[in-house]
């Protein structure tokens, strides 16, 4: 009686070990062929950039002041936008995952709107709300003398608008996967909801928050459509890397490739640092 469960356990583990070997043995081409095609589809355009890059003039072009200016602006705005997204996005994710309120499904769908909306349309929408004649923008200018379009702050707003869903979705996923019993235990021990969030929930979901923040940052870094529409395009104040790339394409495709490579390099570094996260993700 006492040996029976153990033997069953050992048999089960033996079987599972064998079946895993069997899976490794023959790769189903139905999966492998499209997987390789998908990989090629994603990688080939990037390879094209690398092949056509003007390697000989690369250092000189990278050192040009307008390139550094655009890169600096991109990094600064993407970082501030990510910080803003963290401040607003994590609580929003918590609300969606932990508080049962009517219309939660609708709110969750609304949160993902910027993912689906063409960014240029997002930029127009931002103008209609925060522009000089916008619903809120009008009041901002009249009361505080603040105008967002054509300012670096406007770039941050546009980037945050487009990038925040990445953070919210990531954090909400982590919240839903986190074991509720820890929070319940803390609550039964008398901790307030805020204290539970700060001392139990947040440490528990930290990997999800970090992954979300990195995704959010990467998206903000590559933001183009909403930025050019809402914030305009002026060197030093609103011309970020993607805008510089687009403008360079008009006259100097070679310069556009160089700028793209810089963004590409940053993206690859981020993806590589995220890799462990994806591999260990459930």
């Amino acid at each position, binding site marked *: 009686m006492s040996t029976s469960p153990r033997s069953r356990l050992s048999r089960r583990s033996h079987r599972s070990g064998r079946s895993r070997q069997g899976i490794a043995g023959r790769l189903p081409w139905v999966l492998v062929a499209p997987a390789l095609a998908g990989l090629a589809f*994603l990688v080939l*355009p*990037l390879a094209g*950039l690398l092949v056509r890059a003007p390697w000989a003039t690369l250092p000189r072009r990278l050192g040009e002041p307008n390139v550094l200016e655009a890169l600096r602006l991109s990094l600064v705005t993407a970082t501030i936008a990510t910080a803003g997204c963290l401040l607003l996005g994590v609580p929003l994710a918590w609300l969606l995952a932990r508080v049962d309120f009517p219309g939660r499904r609708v709110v969750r769908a609304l949160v993902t709107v910027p*993912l689906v909306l*063409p*960014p*240029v349309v997002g930029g127009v929408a931002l*103008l*209609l709300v925060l*522009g*000089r*004649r916008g619903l809120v923008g009008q009041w901002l200018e009249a009361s505080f003398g603040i105008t967002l*379009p*054509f300012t670096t702050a406007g770039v941050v707003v546009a980037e945050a608008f487009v990038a925040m869903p*990445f953070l919210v*979705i*990531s954090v*909400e*996923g982590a919240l*839903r*996967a986190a074991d509720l019993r820890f929070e319940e235990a803390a609550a039964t021990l008398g901790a307030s909801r805020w204290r539970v969030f700060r001392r139990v929930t947040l440490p528990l979901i930290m990997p999800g928050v970090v992954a979300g923040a990195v*995704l959010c940052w*990467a*998206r903000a*870094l*590559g*933001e*183009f*459509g909403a930025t*050019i*529409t809402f914030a*305009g*395009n*002026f*060197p030093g104040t*609103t*011309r970020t*890397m*993607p805008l510089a*790339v*687009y*403008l*360079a*394409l*008009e*006259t100097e*495709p070679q310069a*556009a490739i160089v*700028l*793209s490579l810089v*963004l*590409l390099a940053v*993206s690859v570094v981020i*993806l590589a640092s995220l890799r462990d996260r*994806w591999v260990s*993700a*459930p």
Partner: protein
Amino acid sequence: MFSRLAPWAVALPVALALGLLGCGAGEPAASTTPAAGPASAAGAATEVTVFAAASLTGTFTELGKAFEAAHPGTSVRFNFGSSATLAQQITQGAPADVFAAASPATMKTVTDASLASSPTTFARNKLQIAVPAANPAKVEGLKDLTDPKVKVALCAEQVPCGAAAAKALEAAGLTVKPVTLEQDVKATLTKVELGEVDAALVYRTDVIASAGKVNGIEFPEADKAINDYPIATLAKAPAGDLAGQFVDLVLSPQGKDVLTKAGFEAP
């Protein structure tokens, strides 16, 4: 719980990959029309693919309909966009039959690559100061644009309307500090229509096309920066003779009529 998570788990990497691809390529597709699709059917050509500057959108669409009516069984497809972008697409092998550019410089990119020869100037366009209908900054002339309190949008110098604006301002001996340098003339005009800027330098045709949403103000220096619009059939035009017939229509009195009605000047 897992089945609820699954869609996000899939959507997230996909969205990330798309985002990165987009930024890698500078997202050119975001605001210009994508390159033309597959070449028109081989053999008896029934389709003319025309790459034309964004400022020609209204007039060329009208002329395209006239062409289809005059040549039953044919169809005209347009790819409107920034002239520089279109020139790039053509030199990269986009299957176009006709190229109508907003500046000789962008046409030169194509003729230099021996993809077209002997372009003809078919229209000229002049700059105007565009102001919102209410003209909140009370702009009356080019000099008012130098006032730091007046928010001005210009086209980037890399695109024809920006080059023309720079030329006109230089001729007037004025320095304007714009708040934004837009990618194309339509984007510049939009900023005026929405009231985000107090003034912008755009083409007369754009002011007319906006149908009252913006007002145009003439200024004498505009005469020093007149834009010539060249048109040419492309050497490898898949549509063959049909391409030349479309150019003939643009150069005909009927074509001239449509163009002048929209605010272009005859060359």
